[in-house]
């Protein structure tokens, strides 16, 4: 067969449906003739290739893509990266939230502890000062309210070098808007304000007025109930009077 006769068979040849002996003849012809006939086969392949477009449209399942890409690891790798990214982001977010909460709790606890420590330190300092004053050999101890549960009773320590310490019981907390005020009253003179204080809910009180005291000229120590801002002179009858 010559080129023209074989040319009409090229389409069936490229589709793989050509009967023998034509198929073998074309094989042999292509080997013998070379490029001119090869170009004809290529054109036949172009024409026949486009017949795929005549197939009715069908849709494969979504899992087919995963099956195919999974064959070469692309799907798994993509899934792993995504999963790692999501997991890492989620973990970081959780850690950040946890750390934030933990830090806030720790800060709150630390503040509370610091406040408690400050309170304890102040209380300890006050007690130390009170004990130091009570142990002062030069201090004079005054008793007030003895033998009577009401009004309050207790002791006053007057130290020339350290000040005046009041230790009282049965002294109810001052009512709202009021406060207790201590007075140092010189012999034959006017009362001198010596500080404001409040008693504890259980009726106990310990108040230290630091500073030098002239015991020789002091006639008595007194406590009155005054407005919460304090007064320059007593405005009420003294609740506590301790004479030197």
């Amino acid at each position: 067969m010559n080129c023209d006769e074989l040319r009409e068979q090229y389409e069936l040849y490229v589709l793989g449906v050509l009967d023998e002996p034509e198929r073998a003849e074309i094989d042999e012809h292509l080997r013998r003739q070379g490029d001119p006939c090869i170009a004809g086969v290529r054109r036949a392949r172009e024409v026949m290739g486009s017949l795929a477009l005549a197939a009715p449209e069908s849709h494969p399942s979504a899992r087919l893509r995963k099956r195919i890409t999974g064959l070469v690891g692309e799907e798994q790798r993509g899934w792993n990266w995504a999963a790692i990214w999501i997991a890492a982001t989620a973990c970081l977010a959780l850690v950040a939230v946890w750390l934030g909460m933990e830090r806030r709790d720790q800060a709150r606890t630390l503040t509370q502890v610091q406040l408690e420590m400050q309170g304890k330190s102040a209380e300890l300092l006050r007690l130390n000062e009170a004990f130091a004053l009570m142990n002062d050999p030069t201090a004079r101890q005054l008793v007030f309210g003895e033998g009577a549960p009401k009004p309050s009773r207790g002791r006053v320590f007057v130290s020339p070098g350290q000040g005046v310490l009041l230790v009282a019981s049965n002294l109810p907390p001052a009512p709202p808007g009021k406060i207790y005020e201590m007075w140092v009253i010189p012999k034959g003179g006017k009362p001198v304000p010596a500080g404001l204080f409040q008693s504890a809910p259980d009726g106990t009180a310990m108040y230290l007025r630091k500073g030098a005291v002239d015991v020789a000229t002091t006639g008595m120590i007194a406590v009155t109930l005054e407005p919460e801002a304090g007064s320059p002179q007593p405005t009420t009858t003294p609740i506590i009077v301790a004479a030197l």
Partner: protein
Amino acid sequence: MTFLPLLFAVYVEGDDRDLASRLKRHEPEALAELYDRYGRLAYSLIYRVVHDVGVAEDLVQETFLRVWNRSQGFDVERGALGPWLLAVARNRAIDYLRSACGRMSRSSLELAETEHPAAFANFETEVLSQDQARRVRTALDRLNENQRHVIELAYFEGLSQTEMAERMGQPLGTVKTWVRTALKNLREDLGQKAATA
């Protein structure tokens, strides 16, 4: 059999040459992109041949794996990636059909020869464009019923002219005439128009 020419919107995004290069380098993402580009078309073609969803999906998988494994022989600069892949897809489907129908007298080796990647070089036209899809529909519509039938039997069922004659109960000479006329018309409508496209 009724032809329902399909106007596939084969939207070729990017460059097939770049995709083919990455396939040759066996970049896994390239296979995913190849599937996104031609997977639906390959599946439609195979399903048209085998009429079974499960079998069609298995054959599509086999098609892409074969292209992946044989991409080293593909000519990146001159090759036509889509037509090659569809030739592989058709051959897988026809091979299955022949096996299922006991028509093993025609060997799969014969089909394999038609899908060698080197054979899909120097195509003059974009054979899978939308314009070409329209031309295919028009060209097939212009064939008479017998001519369309023999083309379908050849392309979608892989029958030789002798097998067509047996299937249709027609003399071999008559079938050869239908085939020759149909191919001549298709060659004129698709080949020449494609060549000038």
